[in-house]
């Protein structure tokens, strides 16, 4: 039996009193079949009808009451949920075990089983009572109230900014340094361009027909840095003239002297 099927009429919608159960009329008991929250709930209610402390109830009497209740419910063709019947079967077993002579009893003993059932009832009973006491307390929003229109507290964060003199001046320095117009200067260097070298080499080839070593094309005087540049451009000029078929290049050995002469047509 789930609580969904419990009838609203049986205390489902009110908290005080929570369990308005009739205590005397058997008829009323039957009418409330759907009001129980499961077999344990029914057992607890039956136990309460014994009008003694839950610790002092007669389990045997309770079992009889429960079985009787189930029997009569079945006679009235009321639909019983399976867990009620399971409980009935287990209680019937408990009863028969309790009626057996001590030496024939199995382990765990029926006394232990009965005690266990009693504890379960006590535990549920305690929670039921606790719930009722809880619900009956002075409750916020029902019995006691908070302030209707609190102003509310606000915490604004305020930042104390700090910066020191040096950081300020340094920052300005960085800005000026970063944005100062940058001038890039390349130092002047004596060079012989490829055009000049081509002209010089072609001119000398036109004058002589024999092999000429590459050094002879270079300017003899002046800056040694110019000589380096002239060597490089003269070499490229030689290759260019050879490619055009206007000159031949000879070298006797790797890294040996390079020589050039006019191509013989």
């Amino acid at each position: 039996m789930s609580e969904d099927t419990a009838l609203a009429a049986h205390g489902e919608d009110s908290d005080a009193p929570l369990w308005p159960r009739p205590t005397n009329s058997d008829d009323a008991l039957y009418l409330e079949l759907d009001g129980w929250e499961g077999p344990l709930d029914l057992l607890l209610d039956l136990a309460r009808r014994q009008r003694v402390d839950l610790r002092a109830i007669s389990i045997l009497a309770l079992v009889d009451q429960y079985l009787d209740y189930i029997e009569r419910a079945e006679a009235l063709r009321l639909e019983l949920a399976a867990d009620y019947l399971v409980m009935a079967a287990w209680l019937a077993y408990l009863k028969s075990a309790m009626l057996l002579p001590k030496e024939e009893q199995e382990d765990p003993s029926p006394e232990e089983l009965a005690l266990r059932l009693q504890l379960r009832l006590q535990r549920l009973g305690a929670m039921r009572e606790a719930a009722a006491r809880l619900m009956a307390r002075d409750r916020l929003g029902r019995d006691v109230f908070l302030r209707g229109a609190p102003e509310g507290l606000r915490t604004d964060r305020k930042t104390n900014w700090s910066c020191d003199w040096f950081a300020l001046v340094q920052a300005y320095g960085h800005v000026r340094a970063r944005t100062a117009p940058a001038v890039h200067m390349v130092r002047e260097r004596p060079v012989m361009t490829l055009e000049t070298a081509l002209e010089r080499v072609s001119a000398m080839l036109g004058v002589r027909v024999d092999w000429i070593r590459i050094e002879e094309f270079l300017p003899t005087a002046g800056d040694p840095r110019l000589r380096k540049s002239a060597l490089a451009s003269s070499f490229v000029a030689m290759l260019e003239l050879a490619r055009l078929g206007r000159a031949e290049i000879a070298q006797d050995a790797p890294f040996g002297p390079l020589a050039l002469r006019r191509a013989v047509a």
Partner: protein
Amino acid sequence: MIDAPDELARAIEAALFASDQPMSVEALAAHLGDAPPASLRAALAALADDYAPRGIHLVERGGRWHFETAADLAHILRREREHNRRLSRAATEVLAIVAYHEPVSRAEIEAIRGVQTSPGTLDVLMEAGWVRPAGRREVPGRPVIYATTPAFLDHFGLESRRDLPGIEELRATGLLEPIDQTMASVLGDDDAGNPADERLD
């Protein structure tokens, strides 16, 4: 007439009156410019005494303080609209079990009630803000466990869970422990596992 309340008490009064939620001593201390918590606590206790005979009370709930109307004046203040939503019997029972046994899993709740709990019941309690999931129990299946919230203490006017009606007595009689444990202490042995429990749980 009222003795002139000292400045700290006045500041506490004003802050708690204006706050739209209960405040812990720490929150109050921070708001009032780091007043020493010890003197705050003393001032709060004195203020609560001051207000005790009045129509407004200063109360502590779960370590947080707020003003509320005196309970005995409920009859002039009770508002119907607040009263409409009532808890089902199942929900009140589950709430009590969570409060007295927390943290507790759904299976443990069902073991106590001897009946399945419909899924909506815990939801209703969580929606009300009174129950929250509080992690998982480190047992096979790692079931979610539930506990009550500060709003639960607020609503039911409890300073802490120790104020739950009758909780000390229940604890003393072993009714807040699993059956097996209670059985063991009653019988003086550890004989665990019982068909009745298995069948009913």
